[in-house]
């Protein structure tokens, strides 16, 4: 079996992706977790490019690794938590029950993947995943959800200000 370039690239992105994702949940300091999450988002953007989703890969880096993670880091700095917040370990029983739940969920997902009609890959048009093609779908088939999303972002802006501000 010959190894294609796609397979090599997949593993080059997938292994660091899983490693940094595990780094998010094992690091006790929120700053280290945030840095691991930024790295995970970059590797995930690489996986998106392999799936011919160039626009979404670009937005992943722009919105997630850029905007959302800067927001997280600002809040971490704003709270200025001391070291006493880091030493508390989760309870052992909680970890065991959590791991059990995850194993059960992954088993369900495994059976779902086994039953999924994956089959042959479709042959793609030349403009698949480009800004033009995705934009056409967004502004025709998904016009109403697109407009509702703008409303959602407005509500989120106002809600964040109202909740976080001490006195308005």
């Amino acid at each position, binding site marked *: 079996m010959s190894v294609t370039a796609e397979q090599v690239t997949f593993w080059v992105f997938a292994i660091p992706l899983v490693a940094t994702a595990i780094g998010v949940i094992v690091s006790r300091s929120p700053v280290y977790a945030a840095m691991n999450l930024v790295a995970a988002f970059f590797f995930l953007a690489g996986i998106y490019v392999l799936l011919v989703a160039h626009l979404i890969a670009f937005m992943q880096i722009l919105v997630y690794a850029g905007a959302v993670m800067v927001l997280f880091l600002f809040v971490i700095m704003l709270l200025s938590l001391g070291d006493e917040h880091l030493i508390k370990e989760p309870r052992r029983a909680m970890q065991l029950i959590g791991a059990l739940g995850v194993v059960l969920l992954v088993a369900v997902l495994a059976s779902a993947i086994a039953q999924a009609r994956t089959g042959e890959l479709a042959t793609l048009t030349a403009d698949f995943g480009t800004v033009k093609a995705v934009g056409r779908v*967004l502004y025709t088939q998904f016009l109403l959800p697109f407009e509702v999303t703008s409303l959602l972002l407005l509500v989120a802006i106002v809600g964040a200000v109202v909740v976080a501000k001490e006195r308005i």
Partner: protein
Amino acid sequence: MPVEYYLWLAAILFGIGLLGVLTKRNALILMMSVELMLNAANLTFLAFARRSGDLAGHAIAFFVIAVAAAEAAVGLAVVIAIYRSRGAINVDEVRVLSE
């Protein structure tokens, strides 16, 4: 390359995120785990979009990114409000609605 590889990667990523949500007690790391789970869902959408050649999956992934941004903004505002009123972001210590 079969799309199962990507689905398995998404399942593992979702499992890691769920483990973080279930076991971590720091509210900030909890929210980062939720972001991981949202990204796993996005990866599944894009994998199936690649298999069927349908761009609707890309549109849904676009909306998921927008919703995740809104969720992060409001969720972090709630974390700031809780820290201001209780001086802690440990979710185990926040168990009553009013003081």
